[in-house]
């Protein structure tokens, strides 16, 4: 007997539209050889075929790819009660609901703490740690920073950033390719934020996955170095499109890499037309004053706003 619907004929996908009742007819034939008596006496030896016909039907609800095999020769059973109990529940909720709610909690905490929070995204090796270290040094006592660093493994970046004197919490993500809002919430409990106006979150070096996760930040900063080529923004549009700020780093290597800065800028503009763009070299200090002045302005705005706004 078929466990799915209780009838006895093979039928494949698309044989009948979902939700519509349908029926199958099939025949069983058997023959009796000479000498077999079929419940009655026959005057002479003979054989004859008996056609047996069953007709049954069942209603199909649900998926259009419904497919089950009915073993021939089974006795027809009544349709199971489960098809009547099946029902559809409309949900219409974001899959990132849990992360989004945690991000909102973080945002509330950041606002109440008068913090400007940056979520810094980039490919591996584009110079996040160097830029952030130099930024913290350049801001100095005027705007004191704290840092949360995400990396798959090692605390090398955290150690380098601690040399600036800023409090740093390291999140080792293991195999995870991005930071999530709940991790940031936990890291904030460990971080001494007393007297800090800037919280910098250095995300895992990856331009794909972190773009989907709101951490509750005020500004999403996407960093790309001139060494990555002019077309990087075109190759990774989701990250760049979500950016409030794009920082082009390693400007001192422009000539060595033969990079067309105007084209790079134009490509950033195409994908992120509303983003603020800064071009810097953390090593030579070029462009760092503008970048730091911007952070101070944004921090003043963040600190002036009411936590419930």
């Amino acid at each position, binding site marked *: 007997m078929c466990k799915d619907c209780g009838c006895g004929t093979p039928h494949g996908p698309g044989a009948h539209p979902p939700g519509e009742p349908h029926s199958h007819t099939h025949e069983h034939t058997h023959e009796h050889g000479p000498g077999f008596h079929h419940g009655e006496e026959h005057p002479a030896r003979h054989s004859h075929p008996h056609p047996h016909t069953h007709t049954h039907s069942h209603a199909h609800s*649900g*998926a259009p*790819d419904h497919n089950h095999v009915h073993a021939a020769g089974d006795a027809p059973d009544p349709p199971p009660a*489960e098809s009547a*109990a*099946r*029902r*559809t*529940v*409309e*949900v*219409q*909720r*974001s*899959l*990132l*609901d*849990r*992360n989004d709610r945690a991000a909102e909690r973080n945002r509330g905490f950041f606002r109440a703490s008068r913090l400007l929070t940056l979520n810094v995204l980039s490919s591996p090796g584009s110079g996040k740690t160097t830029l952030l270290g130099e930024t913290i040094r350049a801001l100095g006592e005027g705007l004191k920073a704290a840092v949360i660093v995400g990396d798959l493994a090692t605390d090398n970046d955290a150690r380098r950033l601690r040399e600036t004197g800023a409090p740093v919490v390291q999140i080792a993500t293991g195999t*995870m*390719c*991005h930071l*999530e809002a709940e991790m940031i919430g936990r890291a904030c409990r460990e971080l001494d934020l007393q007297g800090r106006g800037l919280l910098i979150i250095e995300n895992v070096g990856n331009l*794909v*996955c972190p*773009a*989907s996760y709101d951490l509750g930040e005020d500004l999403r900063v996407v960093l790309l170095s001139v060494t990555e080529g002019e077309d990087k923004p*075109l190759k990774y*549009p*989701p990250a760049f*499109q979500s950016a409030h700020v794009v920082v082009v780093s390693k400007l001192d290597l422009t000539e060595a890499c033969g990079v067309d800065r105007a084209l790079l800028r134009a490509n950033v503009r*195409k*994908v*992120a*037309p*509303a983003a603020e763009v800064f071009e810097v070299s953390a090593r030579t200090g070029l462009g760092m004053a503008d970048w730091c002045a911007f952070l101070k302005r944004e921090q003043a705005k963040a600190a002036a706003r009411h936590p419930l706004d």
Partner: protein
Amino acid sequence: MHELSIMESALTLVQDQARQAGATRVHAVRLRVGALSGVVPDALQMAFEALTPGTLAEGATLAIEAVTARFWCGPCAAEFASDQMLAECPRCGGISGDLRAGKELELASLEID
């Protein structure tokens, strides 16, 4: 790679919703995935198969409804469809980043009993 963790949170949501509705089993899960959500439907399908055993959704089917990305062109005051992040308005050729749909990553509905 992040499809696995997205599916993990999706299944938490699926099971919460199913239990709230008094379900003993989830037969089908229907998602809406925007063309520009940054998520690959095949990878979601794989993650679903890997993560559902032992949950209320064990043996359930996953249906993914693809949502086309739609942009707003200011100069033309009209919407247009595109699956490109750099969407070019078919009327005026201008580039628009004003996304109106296409980033969806939603649990649409469940079939339960």
